[in-house]
């Protein structure tokens, strides 16, 4: 049972050398789903937080909390890869195997990457966090080429399932600071979790966010719901015995992931999507994470036809609304042709 070790590893940071390629496509990409084709930089592995639903419980074979300290080689790899496809507008996140900012006051890694991306012509950085650890990056020269994102959930879910993370109030305060510092902000309402008061709580969450994040500083908003494979269900139940996460009506889909049954997901997504539109209007880029085109259609009355098209939509959105970040007119044909890269 790796469980005990998995938690033990969270306690100490290990600075490790650059080894192997660190930049890749988000691991959840799947042809059955309309995925966004975001790229990930695996510069952090493991996380000091202890969210009950975290897939790292089931994913990490090395339990150590590792941070790559060879910044030069890390950025060299990025340069090589983004230069290979100059037509593409890359979104690159450091959140796949850990939290982008939780350790920033001790590692300074994010600040270095912000400076690098400020001059990177066809790529932006996404730092995604559940922390409020933004002080080290507030004065960076970001040129709006870094999107600071939060994985947001209701106060109830943060208190009961997102252990050791920043409280909702602290996250909101941190978002406010980042907005004031001129950054673009990403909001990830993911994983949405079904519980008796979900409707009122998610409505309230969106209202609180709308009060502090202006539409012209929102890079994107994603919506997704709780999902895990059956092995992880067992780990959640064993590691978090008081949690009621796994007791709702969930079904295993053809991709071996358990999700709330489709009617529940449709209801949840539609509810938050409508409130997002009310809060920020029609020009905010909203997308579903790991859902089929039929779900997009049901929720948004529209769907991208492929992974390549959604990737293009991001590039097009930035070209239209943030031309100083993506001045290049995106070529849809290239996005469609190279969607597997």
């Amino acid at each position: 049972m790796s469980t005990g070790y998995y938690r033990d590893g969270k306690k100490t940071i290990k600075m490790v050398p650059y080894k192997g390629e660190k930049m890749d496509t988000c691991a959840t990409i799947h042809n059955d789903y309309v995925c966004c084709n975001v790229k990930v930089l695996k510069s952090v592995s493991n996380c000091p937080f202890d969210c009950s639903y975290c897939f790292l419980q089931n994913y990490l074979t090395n339990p150590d909390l590792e941070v790559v300290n060879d910044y030069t080689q890390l950025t060299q790899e990025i340069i090589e890869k983004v230069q290979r496809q100059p037509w593409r507008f890359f979104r690159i996140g450091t959140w796949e195997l850990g939290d982008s900012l939780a350790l920033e006051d001790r590692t300074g890694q994010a600040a270095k990457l912000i400076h690098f991306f400020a001059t990177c012509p066809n790529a932006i950085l996404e730092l995604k966090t559940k922390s409020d650890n933004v002080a080290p990056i507030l004065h960076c020269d970001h040129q709006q080429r870094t999107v600071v994102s939060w994985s947001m959930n209701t106060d109830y879910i943060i208190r009961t399932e997102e252990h050791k993370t920043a409280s909702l109030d602290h996250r909101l305060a941190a978002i406010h600071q980042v907005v004031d510092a001129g950054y673009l902000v990403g909001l990830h309402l993911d994983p949405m979790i079904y519980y008796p008061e979900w409707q009122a709580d998610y409505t309230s969450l969106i209202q609180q966010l709308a009060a502090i994040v202006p539409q012209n500083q929102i890079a994107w908003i994603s919506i997704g719901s709780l999902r895990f494979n059956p092995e992880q269900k067992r780990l959640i139940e064993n590691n978090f015995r008081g949690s009621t996460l796994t007791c709702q009506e969930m079904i295993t889909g053809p991709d071996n992931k358990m999700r709330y049954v489709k009617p529940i997901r449709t209801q949840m997504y539609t509810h938050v999507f409508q409130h997002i539109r009310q809060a920020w209007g029609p020009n905010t880029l909203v997308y579903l994470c790991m859902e089929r085109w039929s779900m997009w259609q049901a929720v948004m009355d529209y769907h991208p036809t492929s992974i390549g098209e959604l990737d293009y939509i991001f590039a097009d959105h930035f070209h239209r609304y943030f031309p100083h970040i993506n001045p290049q007119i995106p070529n849809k044909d290239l996005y469609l042709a190279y969607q597997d890269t």
Partner: protein
Amino acid sequence: MIAIASLHELQTSFMDWSRLIEPTSHLVESIKKYGVLSPVLCIHTTENRYIVDGQQRYTIAKDIGLSHIPYIDLTPPIDTATLVLALHKPQIDTSAMLKLRFIRAFNWTLDAAHCQALTLPYYAHLKADIARILTLSQDAQAFIHTKRFSFKEILNIIHYNVSVIDEVLYYNWAFNFTKTQFDTVISYIIALIKRNKTSFKSIFDQTNGPTIIETDTPPQYRLKCWLTRLREMAFPIHTQVRSDIDARIAAIHMDTHIQYDPSLEKSGITLNAHITHPDQLRQFTQKMCDNTVHDTLCEIINRL
């Protein structure tokens, strides 16, 4: 040296952990016919003589009314726990439940080396987990042993509530659970208890359990009926949507087989018709052009 002892002179407390092991009928018949041929192994302390190998021979002899059995006293240079483990390792290795009972019997230290010796995981709250598992009733422990649950699988079923295992197994006489079926039932029951903040008894009543166990049908049929009711209770929305779709499909009255993804995840339907005669093709075409059929199929597609 082989000696003979009266059964009441022999203590069995060092072998209590093995009481889940059912004696083979072959051994029972042999002892009935010839008595205990192979002496049990004992260690002799200043006060008592303890069996360390031969619990089944002892139990059978007692059950069939023998008064004496042969024994050999061992004088091992190792402690009793190590001796018992050395003598029974192959048997202990076959069952996680035996391992845990062995640990308790000898109050075995749960350090990394001991865990490795028993191929058990070594983690912070292992001791607490073992203590919880051993609060299961003897019947539940015997079931888990017989069905060869691994340690991880035991943890999976006891994670929320140990007593519910005993409550469900109380009806094993009616359902004769396999390991997989038991796992499924426990999974549904625990989800429902958590979700509805209710009790096993309430779920059992609501799923028609008391009536099902009284039916004069084979255990597997009873279990199938109960699992169907449990599933409906655990998946009310999914069940409702599927029933609605199935009813619409039935109402079309087509020979065509209309399929959809039962998980409801994949959208769309598949029409499967085997047509061997032009008349059948004509009927099929007419049916598909029928407005009512068309509208019903559209409704089904929209639900998916």
